[in-house]
């Protein structure tokens, strides 16, 4: 069953079109990795899906329901949660408060403070610590935990490993892998190709706001993704950018 469907989505930063007619779908329990160079439009796309950035064209459908015109907080209530780039915890609030604030309007589901602390054991001794006092890895775990508190149908994670130490990346990925194995539906933006491919079912490569490669993780080599990533080589036959240019 398709949980998240994005149709011909476009988003702008002023005159600049950052997302140019992107379409994709994510099935229940599936993990989609969005990869691409800096400035490719991945973060804008994720923020547009989550409602934090306005869509200029296109549609976002969650479980078949059009949520394109809903504000971000209403999309959370529908089951879309974003772990934003840079973690964006509320710095003056404790870890526990950060979790509780997200849990207040939570959808019904298995996630609550206890289950989040079980899933992210590193947070247990830190629950009364201010978010601003946490390390990068601890903040990322808290940020994912905070998103899980809303009991999302689809979890959007922006730049999971950005700015973290290798040890912290290992710990965060361990928890995220457990979430995925538990059946979570995830759209993951990641710069680290190796990591992204290790946890995802499909990979979508974005270049200058367009999808230049979409494939099952097992059907594509790292080199093909890297080539698409930098736009230096031919891409597989299902390349929308190519068909786009052929028709235009």
């Amino acid at each position: 069953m398709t949980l998240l469907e994005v149709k011909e989505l476009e988003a702008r930063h002023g005159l600049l079109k950052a997302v140019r007619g992107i379409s994709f779908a994510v099935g229940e329990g599936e993990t989609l990795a969005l990869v691409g160079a800096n400035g490719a439009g991945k973060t804008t796309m994720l923020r547009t899906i989550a409602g934090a950035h306005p869509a200029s064209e296109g549609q976002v459908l969650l479980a078949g329901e059009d949520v394109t015109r809903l504000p971000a907080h209403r999309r959370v209530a529908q089951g879309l949660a974003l772990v934003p780039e840079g973690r964006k915890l509320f710095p003056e609030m404790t870890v526990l408060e950060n979790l509780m604030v997200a849990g207040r309007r939570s959808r019904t589901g298995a996630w609550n403070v206890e289950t989040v602390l079980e899933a992210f054991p590193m947070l247990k001794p830190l629950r009364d610590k201010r978010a601003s006092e946490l390390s990068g890895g601890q903040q990322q775990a808290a940020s994912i935990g905070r998103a899980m508190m809303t009991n999302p149908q689809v979890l959007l994670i922006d730049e999971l490993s950005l700015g973290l130490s290798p040890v912290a990346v290992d710990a965060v990925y361990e928890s995220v892998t457990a979430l995925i194995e538990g059946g979570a539906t995830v759209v993951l933006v990641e710069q680290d190709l190796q990591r992204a491919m290790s946890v995802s079912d499909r990979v979508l490569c974005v270049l200058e706001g367009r999808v230049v490669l979409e494939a099952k993780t097992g059907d594509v080599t790292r080199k093909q993704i890297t080539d698409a990533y930098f736009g230096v080589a031919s891409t597989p036959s299902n390349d929308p950018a190519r068909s786009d240019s052929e028709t235009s």
Partner: protein
Amino acid sequence: MTLLNAVLQGVFLGSLYALLACGLSLIFGVMRIINLAHGDLAVLGAYLVWTISTKLDVSPFLAILPVLPVMFGLGYLLQRSILARSLRSGPLVPLLATFGVSIVLQNGLLQVFSPDVRSLGSSAGEISTGSWEITSQLSVPYIGLVMMLVALVVLGGLQYTLQHTAFGRDMRATAQDPDTASLVGIPASTIYAKATGIAVATAAVAGAFLAIRASFDPGSGPPQLIFAFEAVVIGGLGSLWGTLVGGVVLGIAQTVGATIDPQYAILTGHLVFLLILCTPRSRALLSRRSTS
């Protein structure tokens, strides 16, 4: 003993300023807006209490009860209709918008109530004039004590709400990062509207005490705004307990100044405010707040 009495009266007067200032502080803390209409909203509250009190011949302490939800609703609508739109256009537009609201309120009050000076002192009875005389030079006015207690209850209640309730957490989260608050399901615009409603309701309480303690007219708002603003800045922008301290410092400065010469009361308050503003701590605090 005269000085001790002046300090005591200053504490009571400062409680009124703190009561007036806490709404200003709340709106600034949550939305980063300086509400230039805050003093006029307090005066509007005073007129509403005066109207109910005189028309129904009830004590102003009873008349304030129906005024509170009305003022909450007014604040809610004010945010939804004017402040929310102006907030999208940068920090200067809300300042101009609230200045406009201030002018509309003053002229509206002039139109409806005339420029006549009014007071709720006589309606409040002995509580507005009576006092406990401790010595011949030291007395505790009933109204001062009531103001202080109400200020402690209101500020303490607000502080408790902010720190220990789910709504307070929502307000703090929205104040820290409204975009991220939306991403965890908090309707930031509703939180803003409720915070404005609470702030305007507290302004009405302060307005009622202003009317019981002294007289008021449609032009009384701006001076009260200045005192409230000074209390907020002295106490540290956006901090509720700091606002209480700021109000008390300002009140003491004014009453001590008045013991030197009654004409010096307001001037001394302003001078103390300027002195505190010039301290390195205040400059650092203002700089940090304006950056955030």
